[in-house]
Structure formats: structure tokens, C-alpha cells
């Protein structure tokens, strides 16, 4: 999903990876030292091998401590212990009759481990400082060891080579990162940008499709009617559909908090409703206001809501304690409810019978409740548009950690696979919303008998 390491993390990540690589090499060296000690002691019959293996093992422990907790204290401690062990190993290995000088393979391995201790901090410079310290201490320890036991001191070439490799790698790492290739390639910016583009594109397409679904048939009807008196059926159809989308945040599925966008939408609503025919004005203005802020109800809006509440007969009287509609109470408290759904039904002229308690919506987080509400609203809109009936039933329930809402109608029914692709109401507005909230949508429809849609979402959520 996102490519590689970003510039600001590359330094620390690379430094840690190189330190880890150094520790792996150090452990490998010590492991070889230990095995050589054991082999010499057992096969070679030289008891001194045991001491050598034990010393290397202690060094490995100190190294493991630094690898696990790379603090300054532990690093210094490991270097001190390592230096002591180097002196002891030099005394052990350089006994007369053995190696000619200290430039030999057996001393090289613990020496290399010592310079690879690495340690606290990250960055090439610090790593080089630690390695130099390890190298110098090892060299000094060897010198001291030879002085104690006798023998010829010579710089250990293998340790010097290892030190050289480490310097090359660390300097290369430090220098190569200065070119800032990561910044210039802009992969991370590009990754963000593509995601944003895809989201915007998807949004545009859905919004266009929704506008297309709602307005196209009316535009064609107007175009084909030619000049003349406006047909009443057309007028009613337009009124119904405008009621569904004007003033609402029609273009988006995810109805976020209404803030910056609201003046724009309010003016659209006002323009749309800014007419001279009284019922239409009341309808449009009411819708507009309702969408801008549900807690602000204009006089017109309130009266229409009451009317709607009368039609929305809720058997559960707890849902409307004072004769007002449940959603008015809920909206005033700011608690989740089915505001959008009831409003949509109201504007579509649909009577909704509710069974169950609307209060179950309270177990959902605001975004999830919003999504469920919007999906139910879309179901009711579909019933009003396509089912050919003026009544729908809504059943709410809570059980098994899930909120279930069933929307039922006894309308004409349909075949889901036969719904044309550009009718994206069901696919995007309902299914996408619910699935985004980890819920499920099940649908049964039989031609001539009716349709049942069951929406289920888990409790909680954002």
C-alpha cells in the first residue's frame, strides 16, 4: 500500500538494521570461538580450550545484553567486560609454543565481536565512534596480554579488515542518504495523492449517479412535454423527488456534521423553494431547514413534522412521550435516532408503521447510527419510488450484540439482479453504507408480493 521507508525514518531504520547485522556477525564470531574452544579441549586434549569457550560465552552474554537494551551504560559495561576477556584470551592463546604473533585467527574472532558491540544511539557517526572504541580497546588488550605472558605483538589484520568493512558500510550509509532520493521520488506523496484521487472520483461518480437517478426522468418528461401547462403528475413527481434531495446533503453518503457546507446547501434549498406556490414553499423550506440543522425547526417545518408524526404511527408510545415525534425528542438530545429515515418517509408521503423501540439506536456510535439511519432512509425512498404502495413497516430490534432493522413493504417487488447498473441506490447507498460499518444487508423480494430488507450492524462503532 505504501512503498518503502520515508526519508525521516530511513536514517534510524537503516542504522538499527546495520547494528543488528553487526550483532549477528559478532555472535557468529563468538560461536566459532566457543566451538573452537570446545573442539580443542575435547578432540585436541587441551583443557585450556574450556576456559577459552567460557570466556567467549561470557562475552556473548554481554553482547546479548547490549543488543537487547542498547543503553550507554550497558555498552560501556560490555566494552569493559570484553576488554578484560580479550586480555585473558590473549594470555591463554599466546602461551609459548603456540602462535608466533598476535596476528592470528583465534584472537581475531573475539576482537571482531568487541568492535561490533555497537550500542546506544543511532546514526553513522555514533556507530563509528563505538566501533573505534571497541577496536582500540581490543588492540590495547592484546598488547597488554602479550606483555603479561610474553610473545610477539603484531596488529591483528583480520580485526583491522573487519573494522575497515564497518567503516566503509557506515560511511556509505551516511553519505548516500544525503542525496535525498526518497524526497525527490515523492512516492509517499504520490501514494496519498492516488488514494485521494480515487476517493474523489468515486464520490463524484456516486453523486452524479444519484443526481442522474433523481432528476433525469423529470428533465426528459419536461423536454418531451414541450410547451404547455405543467402536468400535475409531473409536478407532484418533481415535488416528491426534490423533497428527497434538495437541501439535504444530497451529494454525499457520509453525512458528516453540518458545518462549512451548510450555507451553500441552505441557499440551494432557498432558491429551489423560493417560489410563489404556498405548499411547495412550505415543503421545500421545511426540508431545507431540517437538513441544515435538525434542532432548528422553523414554524413551517415544525407543523409539517407534526403532520408527519401523525402519519408515522408508532405503536411503541415510549418513542413519542409527549405527542411530538420521536425524532424531535431525539434530535433535541443529540442522541442517535432515525431522523433521516422518518424525514425521507415524510417527504415521500410514505406511512411508516414502527414495531420495536427506536431507542435501540442508542447502542450505536454516532457515525454508525448515522449510516444505518441513512440506509433505512434510502430503503424507504425505494419503497416510495418503486414499490407502488404508500405504506411500509419498520421493525427494530437489539440482540446478539447487533442492531437489526427490517424494512418491509407489500409492493410490487423486484428481481435484484434485474436492477439496472446505473440504479445505484441499493448498491451504494444501502449496501456500501452498511458494509462500511461491518454490517450486513439481506434482501428478499418476490414479484407481486413485496420486499423485505434486513439491515444488521454491530453495537458500538464510531
Amino acid at each position, binding site marked *: 500500500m505504501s512503498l518503502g521507508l520515508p526519508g525521516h525514518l530511513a536514517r534510524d531504520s537503516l542504522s538499527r538494521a546495520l547494528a543488528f547485522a553487526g550483532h549477528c556477525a559478532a555472535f557468529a564470531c563468538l560461536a566459532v570461538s566457543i566451538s573452537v574452544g570446545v573442539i580443542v579441549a575435547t578432540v585436541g586434549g587441551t583443557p585450556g580450550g574450556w576456559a577459552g569457550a567460557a570466556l567467549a560465552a561470557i562475552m556473548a552474554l554481554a553482547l546479548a545484553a547490549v543488543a537487547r537494551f542498547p543503553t550507554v551504560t550497558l555498552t560501556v559495561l560490555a566494552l569493559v567486560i570484553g576488554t578484560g576477556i580479550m586480555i585473558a584470551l590473549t594470555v591463554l592463546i599466546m602461551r609459548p609454543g603456540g602462535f608466533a604473533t598476535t596476528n592470528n585467527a583465534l584472537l581475531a574472532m573475539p576482537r571482531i565481536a568487541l568492535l561490533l558491540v555497537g550500542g546506544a544511539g543511532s546514526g553513522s557517526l555514533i556507530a563509528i565512534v563505538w566501533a573505534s572504541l571497541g577496536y582500540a580497546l581490543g588492540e590495547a588488550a592484546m598488547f597488554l596480554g602479550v606483555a603479561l605472558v610474553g610473545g610477539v605483538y603484531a596488529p591483528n589484520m583480520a580485526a583491522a579488515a573487519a573494522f575497515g568493512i564497518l567503516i566503509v558500510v557506515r560511511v556509505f550509509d551516511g553519505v548516500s542518504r544525503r542525496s535525498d532520493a526518497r524526497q525527490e521520488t515523492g512516492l509517499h506523496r504520490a501514494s496519498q495523492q*492516488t488514494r485521494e484521487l480515487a*476517493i474523489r472520483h468515486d464520490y463524484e461518480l456516486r453523486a452524479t449517479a444519484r443526481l442522474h437517478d433523481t432528476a433525469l426522468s423529470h428533465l426528459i418528461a419536461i423536454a418531451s412535454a414541450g410547451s404547455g401547462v405543467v402536468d400535475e403528475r409531473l409536478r407532484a413527481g418533481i415535488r416528491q423527488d426534490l423533497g428527497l434531495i434538495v437541501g439535504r446533503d444530497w*451529494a454525499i453518503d457520509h453525512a458528516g456534521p453540518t458545518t462549512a457546507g451548510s450555507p451553500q446547501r441552505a441557499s440551494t434549498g432557498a432558491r429551489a423553494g423560493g417560489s410563489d406556490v404556498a405548499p411547495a414553499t412550505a415543503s421545500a423550506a421545511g426540508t431545507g431547514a431540517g437538513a441544515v440543522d435538525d434542532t432548528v425547526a422553523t414554524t413551517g417545518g415544525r407543523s409539517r413534522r407534526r403532520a408527519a408524526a401523525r402519519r408515522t404511527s408508532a405503536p411503541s408510545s415510549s418513542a413519542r412521550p409527549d405527542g411530538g415525534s420521536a425524532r424531535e425528542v431525539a434530535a433535541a438530545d443529540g442522541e442517535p435516532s432515525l431522523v433521516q429515515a422518518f424525514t425521507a418517509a415524510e417527504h415521500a408521503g410514505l406511512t411508516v408503521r414502527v414495531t420495536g423501540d427506536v431507542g435501540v439506536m442508542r447502542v450505536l456510535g454516532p457515525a454508525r447510527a448515522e449510516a444505518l439511519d441513512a440506509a433505512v432512509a434510502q430503503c424507504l425512498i425505494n419503497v416510495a419510488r418503486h414499490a407502488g404502495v404508500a405504506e411500509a413497516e419498520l421493525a427494530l430490534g437489539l440482540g446478539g450484540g447487533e442492531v437489526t432493522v427490517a424494512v418491509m413493504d407489500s409492493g410490487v417487488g423486484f428481481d435484484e439482479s434485474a436492477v439496472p447498473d446505473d440504479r445505484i441506490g441499493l448498491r451504494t447507498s444501502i449496501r456500501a453504507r452498511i458494509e462500511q460499518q461491518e454490517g450486513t444487508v439481506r434482501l428478499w423480494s418476490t414479484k407481486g408480493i413485496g420486499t423485505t430488507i434486513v439491515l444488521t450492524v454491530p453495537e458500538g462503532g464510531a
Partner: protein
Amino acid sequence: MRLTQQEADPIGAITAAPIVVIGAVLSLGTSLALTWVHRSEIVAPVAAVAAIVLVAAAGAVAAVSAAPSRAPFTAERLWLVVTLAVGAAIAEYMSTVGSNQYLYDDYGPVVIGMLILSVAPFCTWLSLALAGVLASIVLSILVVGASAYVVADAPVAALIAVNAAPVVALSAAAAGYAYAIIAETLAWQREANRAALQRDSELRAGIARSVQQSRVSVLGREVLPFLAGVMTAERISVADADRARELAEELRRALRAGIESTWLDDLAANLRVSRGVETLVDDPTGAADVLGDDQRSALTALITWLADTGRSERVSVAFSPEPEGGLIRIVADPAARPPAKRELDRFVAVARAVALGAESVSTRENVTVELRYVIE
């Protein structure tokens, strides 16, 4: 964890490419220096020369294979490098056979180890570790042969262990690096993905506010008031009917354009507006939507980089579908500061890292990059 740094962090691998050259040069230098040091032990000068040639060959193969323009570095290339290096160790053994007094001054193990270490950014930790183990086994066989003549009075097993130490230590370092850098990168990617999902949802929530100028908003602002006007009017005029036809046509067009266009068209539109560089997309089948997230990022990065004022005057992107996938051909007409080949190679390497077969050709007239994708 079966990833290489080159796959997970392509830019990191491109940055690391010169270290392979350095490693190759150091290996060659080591072989020359140590051959000089133990020159008195050499019995077969031809074999000694052959060993140095093999070291040079192994280094050259490694350096060439790791070049960004030849990405990705496949496992076979690692085996070729290791085989050549082991061959060098064998030739070195032949050159001193019978008179090799000290194993300590043999360069075979060190050279193998250094070459394995220098290709660490391009291989999985497992293959690096395996390469180290197999090379050590071959070296151990040689040591058994050499042990008869060695001055040191030590058990053969100890000689084997000491002799293999450079290979074991350096390949351990290589495997450790490959393992750690992948762990670091994947950890970051998990974090970045979480952040990206978070940003996505914020973007979705805030999108309505930021698209007031978009096609659909403009259209909505025309269609809805028009319908409202008709609804409240007594009569429909001829002009109304015409306007309705116009709007219906526009709405259909918008939907079709929306369905047919992809994110890439939007990117091109953005670049045209913000950079003033003519950016054209020809994608009749909407193939841009088939690309995976990483492939999209690589393509976006490349196009955005090319379509920079001064770098290109015009960038065209053409998709041509093929049976199993398709070909994306990006042609840029260079402007005052034409894109440098070396910089372009970086994008080509990134594209290869995300499973896009990439080739670039730069001429005086234009820069062409061809990306080949496969639909899974």
C-alpha cells in the same frame, strides 16, 4: 518475511547499489593483496591468476546485477555470484595445494563473505544465510584437504571452524541486515496503512466541503433550481423544454464521463491546472482502475515527476490492453531541463519493484517509459 529490501523499499535498494561496486572492488583488492602476501606458497601460478579473475568476475556480476536499471535482483544472480566466488576459493586452493602453511592468509572465505554482504539489500535473509552455509560447507572440504600441510598443530574440526568464520560471520551480518530492514519497513508500512485509512475516512467526511467546484456540484446547482422552477411554474415554455433537454444531455454525459474516466484522468486534470503542463491520458477501457495501490503510486510518482514545469512540455499516457494485462506507454516531450536518465532509472526501478515490467528510452526528441502490467 520472504521479501528483499529491493521489493519492500525500492528506493533504499537503489541507494545501496553503489555498495555492491565498493564490495566488488574491495574483494578484488583483498585477493590481490593476499595473493602477494602468500606468494611464496604458490605452486600453480595459472590457478592463482584464475582465482583472481574469478573474484573479479563474481564482483562484476554482482555489481551489474544490482544496477537499478536491471532490477529486480533475482535469486539466480545471488547463486551465480556465490558460485563464482566459491570457484575463486577452489582455484586459490589449487594454486597453493601442498604448500599452504597458513589458512589465515587465504582470501577465499573473506571474498565470499564480502560479496554476500554487499548484495544483502537485494536478497531475502534466508537465501543469504543459505548461501553462507553452502559456501562454508565447500570451504570445509577444502580445509580437510589442506590440513595435512598446515603448520598449526590443531584438530581438523577446529581448522574447519576457524576457516569458515569469515563466511559465517559476514553472511550472518548480511542475513541479519536483510531481516532487520524488512522488519523495520513492514512495521512502518503497517503504521502508514493505518494512517492512510484514517486519512481516507476523514477525507470522505470532509469531501462535500471541498468539491463545490466539481462537475457534479456545478451541475446540481443548475438542475435542481431548474426543476424547482418548473414545479412552481404554471406553464412550460419552449425555452424550458430546450433547457431540460440540454440538462438531461449534460447529466447523461457527466455520468458517462464519470463511469468512463478514472482517477488517472483526474490526476492529469490536476497537473494541467496546477503545473500548466499538458498531460493527456488515453485509457479507453479504464485500465487505470485495474492497477494495484502500489502500482498506482509508482505511476503517479512518475507522471507527477515528468509533468514538472521545465522538465517536460507535454506528457501523454496511453494504455493498450493485452490479453493478460496491458501496456502503459508514457511519452514526455522534454523542456528546458530534460529528465536525467539516472533519475528516470529510479522510477523505472520503483515500477519494477511493484510488478510493472518497465523499460525506458531517452532520445533527444522525447523520453518514453513503457510499463507492462499483468492482471492477476
